[in-house]
């Protein structure tokens, strides 16, 4: 279990992380979303012991992670830019990894490379961006670690590769109870992959939830009444957003679907419909509630 308490990290006068708190249990696939500069990568670097916290702590099973060699053997970090030894090949990097990871599994490394069709004896400098990501991923998966940290790593992979990497990770999660932390700004990707999601905003976690619960906590209501009505018609509902066109209002509501539906149904509406939201919409409205317009990579608010 990784626990962050009042975790703060500053770069000169900018606080990249500000009093962040979170719990990441074993065996979970934990997704971190947030806008650019929200602190996602900083969090990962703190979580794998590269940065030292300025305030607060980040611990695994009660031990500080920073410079803790015993713990770091259990972590494999796949950064957004893969560092490689000059003029090295993937196989040479495997030897390099094995010098730090005592349980590095060369057999697994060769079989994964074969499965991904990755040339292990060609110089890494001739590799495309996606191939480097693949190289970094198979090295991590062969390291014998049981905590995997991915920084935007799925971004450079094609769909086939993505599926394959996911399968391998899920097998690790299932067979060994491995923990996976993934950062991304693509909600689609995370919704699909993770079971816990946290939303980072200005260096803190503003929302942490089970993916399934997130999708059911907020919903959309379409309602119309005959004659004129105003916002007082929606008293008793926790409304995050109202959009009215003519006599039809679209509400974003938090709480129980059944209760809200019953409450409005009692007012004899002309039209009353509840619709589930996509995770993307959930985040957009949660972010709006915080006063931030969330930019999405996929064109945003799908109807």
């Amino acid at each position, binding site marked *: 279990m990784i626990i962050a308490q009042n975790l703060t990290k500053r770069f000169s006068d900018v606080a990249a992380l500000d009093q962040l708190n979170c719990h990441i249990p074993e*065996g*979970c*696939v934990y997704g971190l979303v947030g806008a650019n500069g929200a602190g996602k990568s900083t969090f990962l670097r703190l979580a794998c012991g590269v940065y030292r916290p300025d305030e607060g702590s980040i611990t695994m099973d009660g031990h500080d992670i920073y410079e803790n060699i015993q713990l770091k053997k259990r972590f494999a970090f796949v950064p957004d830019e893969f560092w490689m030894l000059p003029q090295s090949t993937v196989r040479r990097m495997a030897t390099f990894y094995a010098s730090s990871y005592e349980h590095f599994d060369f057999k697994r490394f060769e079989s994964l490379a074969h499965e991904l069709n990755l040339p292990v004896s060609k110089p890494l400098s001739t590799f495309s961006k996606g191939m480097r990501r693949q190289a970094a991923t198979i090295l991590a998966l062969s390291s014998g670690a049981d905590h995997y940290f991915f920084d935007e790593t799925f971004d450079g992979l094609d769909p086939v590769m993505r*599926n394959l990497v*996911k*399968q391998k990770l*899920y*097998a690790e*999660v*299932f*067979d060994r109870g491995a923990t996976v932390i993934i950062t991304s700004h693509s909600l*689609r990707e995370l919704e*699909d*992959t*993770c*079971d816990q999601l946290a939303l980072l905003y200005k260096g803190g976690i503003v929302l942490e939830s089970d*993916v*399934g619960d997130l*999708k*059911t906590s907020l919903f959309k209501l379409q309602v119309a009444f005959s004659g004129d009505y105003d916002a007082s018609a929606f008293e008793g509902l926790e409304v995050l957003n109202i959009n009215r066109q003519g006599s039809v209002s679209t509400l974003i509501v938090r709480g129980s679907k059944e209760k809200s539906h019953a409450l409005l149904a009692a007012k004899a509406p*002309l039209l009353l419909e509840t*619709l*589930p*939201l*996509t995770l993307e919409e959930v985040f957009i409205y949660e972010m709006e509630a915080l006063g931030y317009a969330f930019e999405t990579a996929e064109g945003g608010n799908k109807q």
Partner: protein
Amino acid sequence: MFQIDRFGRQPIYEQIIDQVEQLIGSGALSPGDQLPSVRSLSQTLSANPNTLQKAYTELERRGVTVSVPGSGRFISKDAPRLVIEGMQSFLDEITALSAKLCLSRVPKESVLQAVNTAYEANANGNQPQDQSAQGPTE
């Protein structure tokens, strides 16, 4: 066996639950049939094993499946009955739809006609056990 719609609004674990229940309803899965293991399902669907585990746990809580330690998960004896009972929500949907149709002044005969047509078209060999599927009009 299962089809996941990754871009759908419905959470994946709900999709799995619904599909198991549909397969039971249609008779494709019968009591005693084994469900695929979480691990193999996770690999074939590229889906998060924790999510699948959650779906399976819920199916077991509903009594639709039983797990036998060491051998796996099976469709329970009561599953077909439970699934039919669970269809109540669909009847509620018919009620809601009928209410809408009523408000839009669609004659009641047309609604009943639509229900009859659906039953005649789908009832071959798979006789529904309950014919009173016409939603009460409010």
